[in-house]
């Protein structure tokens, strides 16, 4: 997926000005940046819910079609059960009820919620709700995945367990993913590349990460150096 010379302004505020960015197909690009620098705007452009003032968004054939979106908050239907919340996201793509049930069950099993299928969102903890949202995002047969700070405001233990759950689901079927976050550590642990926004014309920093995801350790020297440069870019943005 390529953002080519894109321009986007909100009244006087120019968020992107001939800005270009490439995301390699079937990889995760982590995007960090201070608030108001266009992280969510970039996601909305990728989701085709926001029109560009100028420029172009080019998607590969394999990135066309349905999109899965993980929001900052779980956004579950409050009157539907855990199972229904996931199964409903499959209805537009599959008319076969048995197939839908099996798929929903499969993803709920992967996030460890088999015992909570009949519960309603109000009966779940914050972490469990976000797990349902992750299961829904993966169950939805999408070709592009957009993540808008889905792990923010979670405690550190829960955050890492959800990151792990996310990675294992993603590795099962890789798809182009744009992951927006405030946390440089999260960005490094999840992304195949990291990009820092802050200048409307170009990324402040763009760095490939060549260490395999499962072998990454936040105390690794090269990752620590990358984190330091990300923090530096964020502070000076």
């Amino acid at each position, binding site marked *: 997926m390529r953002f080519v010379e894109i321009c986007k302004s909100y009244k006087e505020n120019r968020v992107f000005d001939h800005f270009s960015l490439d995301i390699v197909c079937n990889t995760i690009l982590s995007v960090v940046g201070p608030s108001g620098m266009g992280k969510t705007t970039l996601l909305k452009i990728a*989701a085709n*819910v926001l029109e560009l003032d100028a420029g172009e968004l080019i998607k590969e054939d394999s990135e066309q079609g*349905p*999109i*899965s*979106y993980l*929001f900052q*908050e779980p*956004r579950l*239907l*409050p*009157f*539907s*059960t855990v*199972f*229904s919340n996931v*199964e*409903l*996201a499959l*209805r*537009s*793509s599959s008319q076969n009820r048995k197939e839908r*049930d099996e798929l929903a*069950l499969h993803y709920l099993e992967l996030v460890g919620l*088999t015992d909570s*299928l*009949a519960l309603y969102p109000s009966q779940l903890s914050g972490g469990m709700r976000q797990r349902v949202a992750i299961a*829904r995002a993966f169950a*939805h047969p999408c070709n592009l995945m957009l993540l808008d700070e889905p792990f923010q405001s979670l405690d550190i233990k829960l955050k890492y367990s959800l990151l792990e759950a996310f990675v294992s689901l993603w590795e099962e079927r890789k798809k182009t993913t744009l992951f927006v976050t405030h946390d440089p550590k999260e960005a490094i642990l999840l992304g195949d590349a990291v990009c820092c926004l802050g200048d409307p014309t170009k990324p402040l920093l763009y760095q490939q990460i060549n260490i395999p995801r499962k072998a990454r350790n936040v105390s690794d020297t090269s990752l620590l150096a990358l984190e330091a440069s990300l923090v530096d870019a964020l502070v000076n943005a």
Partner: protein
Amino acid sequence: MRLVKRNLILLGSSLVLLLLWQLGASLLDSQILLPGLLPVFSTLLELIEQPPFTINVWYTVLRALQSFIIIVISATLLGLLAGRFSFVSLALKPFVTTLKAIPVMSVILLAFIWFSSGTVPLFSAFLMGFPVMYVQIEMGVLQIDANLDEMCSLYDFPLQDRLFHFLIPSLVPSFLTGARTALSMVWKVVIAAEVLTVPRYGVGSRMQLSQIQLETDKVLSWTLIAILLTALGDILFEVLVFFLAKLKQLHDSRRVPCVS
């Protein structure tokens, strides 16, 4: 345990109310000003045994039910339209504001000039109950969660699923609040209108006729019947809501596959 405690408190406060009534009756010592508990309850039993009782109650219930159903249907439809289209809301605003401000008695007196005595309670109750339900439904539509709506669009929820799993459930709380408030208002207005217009049958008509003849025990007996009717209406409504909620839960749990 909590339910037992709640019921005990309710029973205790009801007994205090009856005690105050009896105390007042003993102090005043006048059958016309305030008859005691015993004469009122024996009159109540007499009234229940007499054949016109059922028909009087039936007519009041029928009027209340008719106006309630008309309110629910019309206020829901117009409230949905007003919440969705601002021009409908604006067009109806003067009508709704007038209805909210107008005194009940003015409506009843004006309706009595225009309609027969049997139609006045129904018409007045509709005019008084409609704005309550309409405003609730309109607010419900305006408060539909935009984030969930966006989620439904991004995940391509078919229209039918969006309706049954998101839009209708989102409107249920507003619908129930509106219907509950409208229902208790309907009883009061129907009986008030019957008192003023004295149709051939009705709880309010009996109250008025008893008051003319200074039969305070009968006035109080009919008042007790009116209170019981309102309470019974509320209980039936709550029972209906409870069973519908249980039915939905049962349906939801049947959709969940068994995992061994």
